[in-house]
């Protein structure tokens, strides 16, 4: 049983946060990871910075630009996970990003390194299952989960396939748009989550991300999903408070705590 499966077994609603690795700097990322876990985060998606993040809105774009200024590479990220594992052996880490940095390192090298450093899964935004065949072989060999996205435009036939190809969990993108957009309506999301659950033969946990900005939104979505993902709101707290690190950590911790306490137990 891997760490991702465990956490979905243990928690009614899994609390997932996203951070751009290296924003505002790599030591702060490590510190935030540990304090997030202390304050109730169950799984961390660690963003791999990339020069051309086509699915990200301005907030995460700025976070990525800061990380790139710090010249954070994929190897640095893997090493950071390994450092995190010195103190934490249970919280799952999923690397999230775009295909090219991984393509550049090579699927084989990436997968074996990721495994040995303590990564649990991979989510590539610009990699639909159709293109994922060869990387999936390497990931599976190393028992790493591959998380795929489903979206409001995904047709039923594809939903079924995406559920089948996903391991660990499925990431449902709540809206048509980029990260940091605002969510308006919960009802259609609920309907889609129920649909995916009905179509999924492997009972893959279904999480929801994009547009969740408040404890209230998190609570509502946790009522019908297996987990919620918050990214832009946290990166925005970094953006606004990064000049005063103590304040930045404090604000993030408070936000994380307030979300955690709102989730369905």
């Amino acid at each position, binding site marked *: 049983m891997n760490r991702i499966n465990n956490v979905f077994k243990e928690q009614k609603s899994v609390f997932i946060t996203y951070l751009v690795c290296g924003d505002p700097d790599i030591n702060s990322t490590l510190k935030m990871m540990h304090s997030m876990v202390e304050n109730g985060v169950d799984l961390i998606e660690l963003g791999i910075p990339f*020069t051309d993040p086509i699915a990200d809105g301005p907030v995460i774009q700025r976070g990525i630009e800061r990380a790139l200024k710090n010249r954070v590479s994929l190897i640095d990220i893997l090493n950071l996970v390994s450092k995190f594992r010195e103190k934490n052996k249970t919280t799952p880490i999923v690397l999230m990003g775009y295909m090219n940095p991984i393509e550049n390192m090579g699927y084989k090298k990436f997968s074996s390194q990721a495994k040995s450093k303590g990564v649990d899964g991979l989510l590539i935004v*610009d*990699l*639909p299952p159709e293109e994922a065949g060869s990387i999936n072989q390497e990931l599976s060999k190393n028992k790493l989960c591959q998380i795929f996205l489903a979206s409001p435009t995904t047709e039923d036939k594809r939903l079924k396939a995406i559920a089948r190809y996903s391991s660990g969990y499925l990431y449902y993108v709540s809206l048509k*748009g980029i990260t940091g957009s605002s969510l308006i309506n919960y009802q259609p999301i609920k309907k889609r989550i129920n649909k995916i659950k009905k179509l999924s033969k492997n009972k893959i946990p279904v999480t929801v991300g994009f547009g969740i900005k408040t404890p209230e939104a998190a609570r509502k979505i946790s009522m019908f999903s297996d987990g919620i993902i918050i990214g832009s709101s946290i990166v925005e707290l970094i953006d606004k408070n990064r000049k005063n690190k103590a304040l930045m950590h404090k604000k993030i911790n408070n936000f994380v705590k307030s979300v955690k306490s709102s989730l369905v137990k």
Partner: protein
Amino acid sequence: MKKINYKSFPDKNGRFEEFGGKYVSETLMYPLSELEKAYKKIAKSVSFKKELNNELCNYVGRPTPIYHASRISKELGSCNIFLKREDLNHTGAHKINNAMGQAMLAKAMGKTRIIAETGAGQHGVATATACARYNLKCVVYMGSEDIQRQKVNVYRMKLLGAEVISVESGSKTLKDALNEALRDWVTNVDDTHYIIGSVAGPHPYPMIVRDFQSVIGHESKIQMKKINKKADILVACVGGGSNAIGLFHPYLNEAVDIYGVEAGGFGLNTGKHAAPLNKGKPGILHGNRTYIMEDQNGQIQSTHSISAGLDYPGVGPEHSWLKDNKRVKYVSVTDNDALKAFYYLTEKEGIIPALETAHALAYAFKLAKTKKNKNILINLSGRGDKDIDTIISLKRIKV
């Protein structure tokens, strides 16, 4: 060389062997498959073809002539230089061939809003024009650096009723405009069609744009035959590669030498260029697998070229494939050599070419000096009016 039927690609997965594909976020998978379905339908439709042909004749001004540049041919040696005059199209470049086709396709799909990215502004102007013609709302994304160097085209787009959005992220050029357009599309998929201007992007774009641009090569064949000539050598500039593939594709299965000319910028060894086929390696950018310019960590590098239209770190996947199977030879020309060719054609033939096109001209002139008795057909992809500001500031011409 292995025997390949070049006309049978891309395959059903949108691949040119290891290149191409659909590397996009999930939200775009549906509109891309809708687009593919709609395109396949209209590509077979006789009435669509007839209507497009009518538009190309009476609105765009096709067929564009092939001109025998006799003065420079004589001066350069024994070859005959022919220019396919895409610069004489309405709006001044080959870009309109694709913009018209895709605007009609969007109309057929019931879309009411068009978005586009643009580098030099030629594709933006062509799209804004087609949108005015077809009563479609038009939004064009353009890097703020490109807006500065191609102001005239920005004015034209605005006059035509398009909204031009300045892109301030990343390197503030074509690649960032493409990123922003993709973000817009993901947000507005229901009513919006994205008219990509080059043979780049995810499948089916490289195929659709190629097909609409292939009119260049098809016409060329007929026109050369009419004057009892056959092209021995084809030359075109390659940024994303749409004018090049438009000329090359109908000739790929024939015995013709083909050259694609990339932007060498300050020189291939300076790192300041836009020549991924010469200096890059295969990677993934903007939805497809192709040659790209990247650093050792897989981050996309910023490029340099005097011509905004070639200033792009990737290239259409079909070109990557044609490079690897050695069907097309990809070479490069520096900013300086392109400028020399720009002046040369202007002064000797009375044709002011676009700076993009000047790259193709520079290489073709070099070939003309070394080859014997060949017919060299160059795609004169666009006219240079848009580059006048750049040139004037270089030459310090005073009124």
